[in-house]
């Protein structure tokens, strides 16, 4: 009864319900925000309302015209694309592992900042131009350039970790949104095949003994360093960043995907190089530009979920792998990106599928976090969520939609 007196000035005795599940909600909230933004962007900028001409589709589609080829050919092309993607990611991950082994961490960190600047400037700039065009906002190009320049540079500083953590978290979510939005431009079959391939790759790379991500994690733990990577850290926003003057907690890994998704930038790079071989001269121009944008994506890496272990707390390194007193859960940015790609692609079909996939991904994320609490080592965050998301997408699209539309249009609901 003590909790019933909400009108009294003395606070009710705290029940466990007040704080239980707080860390999970602190991860679920930014993931949901990222997905929501991507869904809104795809809805607002959909091709029917004068959206972008999907450069990625031109590069990647590789002569598979959806109306002229049979579904077997489409499936084959999609699988081939995703295979190229995964091979490239693996190669680049091993390159990253090599660089990390040779202790080029300063180079990696600065490259991370540089590439996130490029992502924010180029991809962000492209997106903002599309938005300005869509909403007929009167803005001259000089002001736009100044604003964009500031936006990108502050993003670099945020990624290097010299700002309050709220700003860093916001910028990481923004980078995720930008990359995911451009990824939804991929043709449909390729997107689904790519998601499946990435989930399988993630599973292999983190759990197999020869997996590059696992080797990277073990190397980092043995050296007691942090992997330089774009990682979202779910610390509370009000915490002061005592870790800033010391070895920055957010070093960026430039091509490594720790457990979650691989370097999507390098993927674009690969696409660029592959496409230039097969296409002609003007394709080269397009792909060169895309290649540069691809470089920036190099920073969009992810790290597997890590939970700080409380027993090895040290003051000088409060954010290393397996260390730290903050108990914060870390989720790699590639996870954000691929979750949002899945939901964005589902939203391009219908909102019902988008919502079903959202629930499935959150359920998968919850299960992964539970497993993390049980096993206490780096785990891949992609497979469970992507598997649930894909299953729910196809079930909803095939079964649920007919049912719900049938009921609703007859105004018979339960």
């Amino acid at each position, binding site marked *: *009864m*003590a*909790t*019933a*007196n*909400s*009108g*009294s*000035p*003395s*606070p009710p*005795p*705290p*029940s*466990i*319900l*007040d*704080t*239980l*599940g*707080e860390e*999970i*909600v*602190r991860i*679920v909230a930014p993931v949901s925000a990222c997905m929501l933004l991507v869904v809104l962007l795809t809805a607002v900028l959909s091709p029917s309302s004068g959206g972008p001409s999907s450069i990625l589709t031109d590069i990647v589609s590789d002569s598979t015209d959806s109306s002229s080829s049979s579904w077997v050919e489409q499936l084959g092309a999609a699988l081939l694309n995703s295979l190229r993607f995964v091979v490239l990611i693996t190669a680049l991950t091993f390159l990253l592992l090599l660089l990390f082994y040779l202790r080029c961490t300063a180079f990696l960190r600065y490259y991370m900042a540089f590439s996130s600047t490029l992502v924010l400037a180029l991809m962000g700039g492209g997106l903002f131009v599309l938005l300005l065009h869509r909403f007929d906002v009167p803005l001259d190009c000089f002001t736009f350039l100044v604003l964009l320049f500031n936006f990108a540079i502050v993003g670099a500083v945020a990624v290097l970790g010299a700002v309050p953590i709220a700003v860093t978290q916001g910028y990481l979510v923004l980078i995720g949104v930008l990359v995911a939005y451009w990824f939804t431009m991929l043709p449909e079959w390729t997107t689904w095949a790519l998601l499946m391939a990435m989930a399988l790759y993630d599973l292999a790379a983190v759990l197999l003994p020869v997996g590059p991500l696992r080797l990277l994690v073990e190397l980092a733990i043995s050296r007691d360093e942090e992997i330089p990577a774009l990682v979202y850290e779910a610390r509370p926003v009000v915490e002061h960043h005592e870790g800033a003057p010391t070895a920055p907690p957010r070093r960026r890994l430039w091509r490594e995907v720790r457990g979650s998704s691989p370097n999507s930038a390098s993927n674009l790079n690969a696409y660029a190089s592959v496409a230039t071989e097969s296409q002609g001269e003007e394709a080269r121009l397009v792909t060169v530009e895309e290649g540069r944008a691809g470089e920036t994506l190099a920073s969009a890496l992810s790290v597997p979920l890590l939970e700080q272990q409380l027993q090895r707390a040290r003051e000088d390194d409060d954010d290393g792998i397996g260390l730290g007193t903050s108990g914060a859960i870390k989720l790699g940015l590639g996870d954000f990106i691929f979750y949002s790609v899945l939901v964005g692609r589902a939203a391009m079909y*219908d*909102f*019902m599928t988008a*919502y*079903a996939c959202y*629930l*499935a991904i*959150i*359920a998968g994320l*919850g299960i992964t976090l539970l497993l993390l609490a049980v096993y206490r080592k780096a785990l891949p965050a992609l497979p469970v969520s992507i598997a649930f998301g894909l299953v*729910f997408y196809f*079930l*909803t699209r095939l*079964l*649920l939609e*007919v*049912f*719900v*539309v*049938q*009921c*609703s*249009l*007859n*105004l*018979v*609901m*339960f």
Partner: protein
Amino acid sequence: MTVAAGVGYALVALGPALALFVAVIAKKPFLILTVLSSTLFWLVSLILLSGAWKSFLPLRSTAIWPYAILLLTSVGVQEGMRILFWRLYKRLEDLLNAFADKMSKPHLFLTDKMQIALAGGLGHGVAHAVFFCLSLLTPAFGPATFYVDRCTQMPFFLVSAFVALGFVLIHTFSMVVAFNGYAEGHKADQIFAPAVHLVAAMLTMINLTHGGCMIGLPLLGIAAAFTLQYCWRMKEFPDLPVGHLSDHVSTEDAFLIHQSSKLSGATVGANLMKLVTELSASFRGKQPATPSTNKIKGMLDKLINAK
């Protein structure tokens, strides 16, 4: 019709749910997770239903009885899901109480349990609103609107928004009633939730007749109001679970608290209101402290200092 109309329809369907979310649920992370998981349960039950009915759809639109069977099976599956949800919740409650013991915090209070039930019901209601109303709302953001043949008085989107509003209220509060019924073994409460669900679903069948939506919607509103009324007036059960308090206070104090707040023929709502107003008045010094409020204040101090 425009973005404004689309947003308006969405808010008609989800306005109270949003208010409940911000006021009660957003403060406690565990309740947010409860809402998400109960939404997922509802979605799974809906997918099962649609899988079972796949071969029979689309139904002929002239006959009534296929819809009746559809509704019966749907409501049946969802009520079964509610019982499953309750079983899971019971196991979770034991886990939570064990966890609370480890953290040396009190066991779950009654209001905590009610909040969890509220969050579960809200998850069901929000899932209904999203899948039956919001997912079909995309054309409403464009320049046109849509009328169903059988209901020419209101746009289709508005009808579905009102139905979703009714069902949000019904699902949310019948879950509270149902959980209380399962916890205390009151048959009336246990039967209430499936009964109201079935009645409400049958009421939407009135919409199948021409012009029926003008009758069906107000009736659905009456059903929602009845659910709210029933939940507010739920009879206070004789053994108020002050067992957790008895670690810190004597049983006479606990009994006194129970008695002091009890009116004749007391209900949950009335008792809470009386207790709240008495306590707040006495804390503000506007009302001489009665023995019961002194006892309660003493208990609160004991509880707070007992940490």
